[in-house]
């Protein structure tokens, strides 16, 4: 091999040191005509898979261009940096074990290596010594002794003034020791243009500004990839150093494709072949479910799936997932779980109990998503109850041991807000300025920082300082920032995991995670099992427990009565507060339009109210077609193509692509993509914002469709829809699983509202709404709710028999702000023998500290003791803590009787306010009712009156603020207010927002002036034009206490973090659960 290859190239996975993406490095090296490139990041191989993918895109081995991957070892013992490349698969294992050793020795994010570690792990590693000053001969000799002729001495020409002198000295050392020189440019970025960016990241790393950085930043822009000709010219005094890169390259046979993955063998009993064991298990289950014999369709599908699983040897995978699920179910009490993901549509998964959605009845096609063309392992995510997932994770560690199980990494990328702040700081802008610019990115997500943002903050976008900030922020966005651990993606191997990939210590003790993330794992075909936490499963399990305990039925996830008409009727009325997935405001508005009647309607409902379909403009066409206002038609291709080909793809969704799979299928069917191309499209969709391959696919797809005779505008619309998916698309398989949980939760809410609310309250925090709203909803649905009380409440909320064989909901002591579980437990134990008599009695029996007594009294939970709030408090305050030994025997009252304090009685308004302060909800009344007379005089209508008002009426409404959201592109703000009669949903256009921003953001009690807009389905919105902050009125309610109404968990003002949009490339199911982005539909 001739020519030159840059073998010491760092990428931005050398965090805050490299300034180019791995793909850029590879592409630029190739473009410059090098014979290869070596990617070596600082004590890490986190970026090499991305480089490998870029190399594959160039054609891999067939391109004649070589990629070698390794790491730059930076030592803690003063040894100069050594770049190590594995020559073989064995060498790779040594390298990853070496890095694991260093990682595990250090705290999170660091790696402590010593030279002797390298010497102990140096088999099949090729080493390049990178010396800052002239290297120590003894070091070279030691390395040579260990590795023979696999050691090189890196020589650079950094333009430091004394380059020639240094090169001569290196040549002398090389001649003396026999270690050959290797020419390199020690590259930190692909092109010289990246100098400014590199200086900025250096400043971020060292916490300084470019003005003050001095010699911390490099003197020049020379550390980029240089052409082979230029390198030959620079090293003309030493041509063999340039040629040495070819020698090294020729000795490496390892590529990441050599990482042959082997599934763990645990789940298969000895004497069984995995495939046979899987078939055995499935057929056993089938026989139990269908004792009379399997229907034909089932037999056919099972055979199809078995064949596919056999051909791709996926039996181990299904067995591993089954093993984990089986374990969770075998615990006492069992952990509720449900699988989803592409492979979860299979009959195999259904029969093994991994999923509860019947794939045959729901016409799900397994093979469609697990095609033989996609060389990726199947994907099953399993959701577990959020409070008990840890047990499952510890089981995995126990069963597969830490050597063979590890959690995947999540690469944390630079996000607009943090990037603006950090770059601004490095450029020496004041905190004020950057904070002001950053603050304008409110709840929205953009690939770059639009000019408008800067202008919004009152900055001239043409101002050179601001322009500079923008340019650099744009460049730094999407850079990896650090590695973090994925919430539940496990990688399991049969052999040692640390010979596959380096392992790091997690932030939590007892957690270890590997250096690669989900995409890397997919790209290399490793197996990942997602063990995820889902709050709704906890709630459903608690509901089932309550039903069983109170004799209301014995249910499991799959045995809930299907297709209950009353449940769908409730959903059609838009009553879905507390349910899974369909409870957000956007979903509630959608329900009366979708009019769901069967599970598949919910599947579509879950998928349609999300940014992909919304940005793609699919929602309204779909609704029109569904309501029969628009003909369902499928554009046809010209002959000789099958005119009904689109019917096949889009038939179920009335010709509108709603699911990610449909988008891919569309590309294959209508644009003639090969499956591999479609797969490339899918990957480009996921990452299109940073590698710019999307335009290429756009041309391919639009031209492909036009070429087959589709109208161009239709083709373009299809593509824009696919682009929307790329960001937040939702595969049908996930929608199916979620829809089922949505149905189960809706069924519970409809049939057993007290049980459901009780379980929801006991699973907090979760979901969209605060307890106040859940309780109010339950009361609206006829559930009797009883206040927390020391005489009957437990820690959790519970059910009590009520009139007519119904159940009343007793709030638990956990609702009291700041109350502790052990206090509650002691109260329950204390009152077991006989009822509590007084506060002093309770304090003694439950050994409660004064703080606990005060909280109970404050929360008006001492009703059973015959004490109103004030009297209880007065009494609690004088009760000493604990038990005085002198009185313990006598069990006599210790405190002298006091004359009745005759405290003034508390007015009802103050009772309500105090309730809100201590329990965050009040059963006694609503704060607005005390202000009603005053507001009515101002012409303010109640929420109920607004709901009944005719379209177009100008009205004034007032209420406490429940939620403020500014979703999606941010051109509207949604506000929900509440009063004693109900809620009003208001919409304020962003253009009307800025001049009344303070009122919008700060109001706790808001007065809204606007116009009624009533849709034909009867959905009422208040189109706001003026927002008035009337929070001061809340002070009228109580002379002493500020009223702080509880705001929903989804409010973007009070809880801006919870709406952080999911990173599309790590489309993380946990975020899917919270569904932040789905709230933005209108």
């Amino acid at each position, binding site marked *: 091999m001739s020519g030159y290859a840059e073998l010491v190239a760092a990428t931005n996975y050398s965090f805050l040191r490299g300034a180019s993406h791995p793909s850029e490095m590879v592409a630029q090296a190739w473009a410059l005509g090098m014979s290869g490139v070596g990617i070596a990041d600082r004590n890490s191989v986190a970026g090499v898979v991305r480089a490998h993918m870029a190399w594959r895109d160039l054609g891999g081995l067939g391109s004649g261009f070589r990629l070698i991957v390794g790491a730059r070892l930076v030592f803690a013992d003063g040894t100069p940096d050594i770049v190590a490349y594995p020559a073989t698969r064995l060498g790779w294992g040594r390298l990853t074990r070496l890095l694991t050793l260093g990682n595990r020795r250090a705290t999170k994010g660091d790696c402590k290596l010593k030279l002797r570690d390298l010497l102990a792990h140096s088999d099949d590693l090729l080493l390049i010594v990178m010396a800052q000053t002239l290297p120590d001969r003894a070091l070279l000799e030691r390395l040579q002794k260990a590795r023979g002729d696999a050691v090189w001495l890196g020589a650079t020409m950094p*333009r430091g003034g004394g380059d020639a*002198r240094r090169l001569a000295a290196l040549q002398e050392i090389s001649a003396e020791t026999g270690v050959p020189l290797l020419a390199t440019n020690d590259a930190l970025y692909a092109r010289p243009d990246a100098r400014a960016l590199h200086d900025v990241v250096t400043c971020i790393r060292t916490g300084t500004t470019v003005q003050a950085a001095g010699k911390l930043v490099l003197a020049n822009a020379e550390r980029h990839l240089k052409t082979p000709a230029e390198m030959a010219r620079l090293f003309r005094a030493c041509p063999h150093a340039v040629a040495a890169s070819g020698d090294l390259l020729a000795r490496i046979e390892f590529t990441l494709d050599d990482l042959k993955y082997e599934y763990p063998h645990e789940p298969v009993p000895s004497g069984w072949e995995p495939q046979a064991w899987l078939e055995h298990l499935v057929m056993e289950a089938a026989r139990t479910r269908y004792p009379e014999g399997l229907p034909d369709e089932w037999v056919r599908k099972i055979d199809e799936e078995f064949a596919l699983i056999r051909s791709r040897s996926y039996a181990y995978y299904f067995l591993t997932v089954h093993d984990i699920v089986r374990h969770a179910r075998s615990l006492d009490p069992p952990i509720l779980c449900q699988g989803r993901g592409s492979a979860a549509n299979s009959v195999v998964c259904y029969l093994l109990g991994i999923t509860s959605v019947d794939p045959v009845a729901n016409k799900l096609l397994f093979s469609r998503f697990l095609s033989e063309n996609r060389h990726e392992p199947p994907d099953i995510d399993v959701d577990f109850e959020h409070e008990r997932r840890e047990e499952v994770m510890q089981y995995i560690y126990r069963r597969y041991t830490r050597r063979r199980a590890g959690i995947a990494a999540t690469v944390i990328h630079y996000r607009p807000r943090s990037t603006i702040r950090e770059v601004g700081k490095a450029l020496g802008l004041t905190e004020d300025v950057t904070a002001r610019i950053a*603050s304008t990115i409110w709840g929205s997500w953009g690939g770059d920082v639009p000019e408008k943002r800067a202008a919004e903050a009152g900055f001239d976008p043409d101002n050179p300082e601001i322009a500079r900030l923008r340019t650099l922020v744009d460049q730094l966005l999407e850079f990896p920032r650090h590695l973090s651990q994925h919430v539940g993606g496990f990688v399991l191997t049969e052999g040692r995991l640390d010979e596959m990939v380096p392992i790091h210590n997690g932030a939590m003790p007892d957690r270890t995670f590997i250096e690669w993330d989900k995409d890397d794992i997919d790209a290399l075909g490793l197996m990942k099992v997602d063990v995820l936490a889902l709050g709704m499963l906890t709630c459903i399990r608690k509901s089932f427990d309550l039903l069983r305990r109170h004799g209301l039925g014995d249910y499991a996830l799959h045995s809930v009565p299907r297709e209950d008409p009353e449940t769908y009727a409730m959903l059609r009325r838009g009553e879905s507060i507390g349910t899974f997935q369909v409870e957000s405001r956007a979903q509630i508005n959608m329900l009366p339009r979708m009019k769901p009647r069967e599970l598949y309607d919910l599947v579509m409902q879950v998928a349609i109210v999300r940014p992909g379909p919304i940005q793609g403009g699919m929602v309204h066409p779909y609704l029109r077609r569904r309501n029969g206002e628009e003909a369902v038609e499928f554009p046809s291709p010209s002959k000789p193509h099958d005119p009904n080909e689109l019917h096949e793809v889009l038939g179920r969704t009335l010709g509108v692509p709603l699911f990610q799979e449909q988008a891919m299928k569309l590309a294959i069917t209508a644009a003639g993509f090969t499956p591999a191309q479609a797969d490339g499209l899918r990957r480009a969709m996921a990452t299109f914002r940073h590698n710019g391959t999307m335009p290429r696919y756009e041309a391919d797809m639009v031209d492909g469709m036009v070429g087959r005779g589709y109208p161009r505008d239709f083709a373009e619309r299809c593509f824009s829809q696919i682009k929307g998916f790329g960001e937040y698309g939702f595969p049908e398989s996930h929608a199916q699983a979620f829809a089922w949980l949505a149905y189960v939760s809706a069924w519970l809410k409809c049939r057993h509202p007290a049980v459901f609310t009780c379980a929801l309250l006991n699973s907090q925090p979760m979901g969209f709404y605060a307890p106040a709203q859940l309780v109010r909803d339950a009361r609206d649905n006829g559930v009797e709710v009883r206040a927390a009380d020391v005489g009957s409440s437990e820690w959790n909320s519970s059910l009590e028999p009520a009139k007519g064989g119904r159940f009343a909901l007793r709030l638990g002591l956990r609702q009291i702000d700041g109350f502790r579980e052990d206090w509650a437990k002691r109260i329950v134990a204390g009152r077991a023998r006989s009822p509590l008599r007084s506060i002093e009695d309770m304090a003694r029996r439950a050994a409660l500290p004064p703080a606990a007594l005060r909280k109970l009294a404050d929360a008006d939970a001492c009703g059973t003791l015959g004490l109103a709030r004030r009297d209880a408090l007065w009494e609690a305050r004088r009760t000493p803590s604990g038990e005085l030994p002198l009185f313990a025997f006598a069990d006599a009252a210790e405190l002298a009787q006091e004359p009745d304090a005759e405290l003034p009685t508390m007015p009802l308004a103050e009772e309500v306010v105090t309730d809100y302060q201590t329990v965050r909800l009040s059963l006694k009344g609503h704060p607005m009712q005390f202000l009603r007379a005053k507001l009515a005089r101002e012409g303010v209508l109640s929420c109920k009156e607004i709901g009944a008002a005719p379209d177009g009426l100008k009205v004034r409404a007032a209420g406490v603020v429940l939620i403020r959201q500014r979703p999606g592109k941010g051109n509207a703000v949604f506000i929900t207010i509440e009063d004693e009669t109900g809620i009003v949903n208001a919409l304020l256009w962003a253009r009307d927002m800025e001049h009344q921003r303070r009122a919008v953001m700060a109001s706790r009690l808001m007065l809204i002036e606007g116009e009624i807009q009533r849709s034909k389905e009867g959905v009422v919105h208040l189109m706001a034009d003026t927002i008035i902050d009337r929070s001061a009125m809340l002070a009228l309610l109580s*002379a002493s206490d500020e009223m702080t109404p509880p705001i929903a968990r989804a409010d973007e003002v009070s809880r*801006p973090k919870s709406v952080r949009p999911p990173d599309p490339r790590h489309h993380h199911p946990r975020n899917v659960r919270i569904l932040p982005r789905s709230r933005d539909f209108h």
Partner: protein
Amino acid sequence: MTLADARARCPQLIAHEHDEPADRHWLERLTRAYFRFSPAVTQLPPDGIAIDITGGGHLFGGEQGLADLAQDQMAARGMTVRVACANTPEGAQALARYAHWPAPDERGAIQALPVVALNLGEEATRGLQRAGLKTVGAVAARPMATIAARFGIEAVRAIERLTGDESAPIASLMPRQALRFERRFAEPVAHRESVAVTLAELLHEAASSLEERRLGGRRFGIELHRSDGAVHRLEIATSAPTRDSALVLRLFAERIGALADPLDPGFGYDSMVLTVLRAEPLDPVQTSIPGATDGMIDDARALAELVDRLSTRLGPDAVRRLVPRDSHIPEQAQFALPAIERGAPAPWPADTPDGPPSRPLFLFDPPQGLHDVMSEVPDGPPRRFTWRRKLHHVRLYEGPERIAGEWWRRKGGELAGQGGLTRDYYRVEDVRGRRYWIFRHGLYEETDGPRWYVHGLFA
């Protein structure tokens, strides 16, 4: 409210860190302004001042007149102030914070105060409010034993202090003694030696005062009050804190000697004042034993003394010291700062250990242009050049050392190709053995026909 909340409401918000020491310092200064009303004045952090006006109110026109004066005094400093008078400092403070003053009935006004005026902390205040006891009067009307059982004896005491049943004197903030030494003469002194002797005596006094306080003076001032009322003021500064009266005396002598307009004692001086204008901590040190030599310390001291003397004589700007600055740009890699302000010389960054010096000892400011330069593209050294109308042939060279421009100082410098010209520096030796530091301003791909300069000469 969190800052993020506030920003969401008002994006234009400018936030400053709370500077608590500065607030305290300011309150202390404000407090001192009230010594004119009473010797018993104290500050009540974070934002209150208490004045004991017992027996002194009539001097300022009664309570109302005093309140007006106090308000005027603060207004002059741009502060608004709420004033109240009461029988106890706590009562006055509570009235000032939570009520209007003057109130016709002081006792009634205090009874009507909200319970928060009791200053019992948030938890106890809330407890009283929740119990429906919302005014000081409502609490005070309860049996004190019930209050003590629930809110502690402190609460009872707070009520009594507020209602005037108990009172504690305030601890005054007395002014501190300044380092000021004065000598009044029985007869006006005109003789220069007598002045010098007196100054020496004052300096000895000052030195012992400084030593007691473990301080050393950095700036000293003298005032010479002439019998006809004229006052001469002189100041000297030293580069390090000192108590060495001989040194200070010498510096004063230098200062006087350097005056353009010599001191004219006229009919003599009445009095003389020495003030230590700035002092810094200085621990006592063992002065060297006569005869023993401690070269290093002596050298450093001798240098410091020289700097002090020259600076005193020639002015601080005239004596400068080079201080290294962290920059790649050669002409910005050092500052020349007044030596007297810099203290001891800072260590200079070392050159490469066994290589030749990378920077010349002498730099031209600005660099001097070269002509007729012959060099190789793209990065060859000058083969020959004309400088000061003389042609030089280069025999040996080393380089280039490439130093890129500071992109952050240029408009749009972060964009590709806009970062400013890069310099390639060469150390060259001409055929006659002279060594120059020469640079080409700009790479060939950055500019057409880059210019060459000589930036410095090697020794």
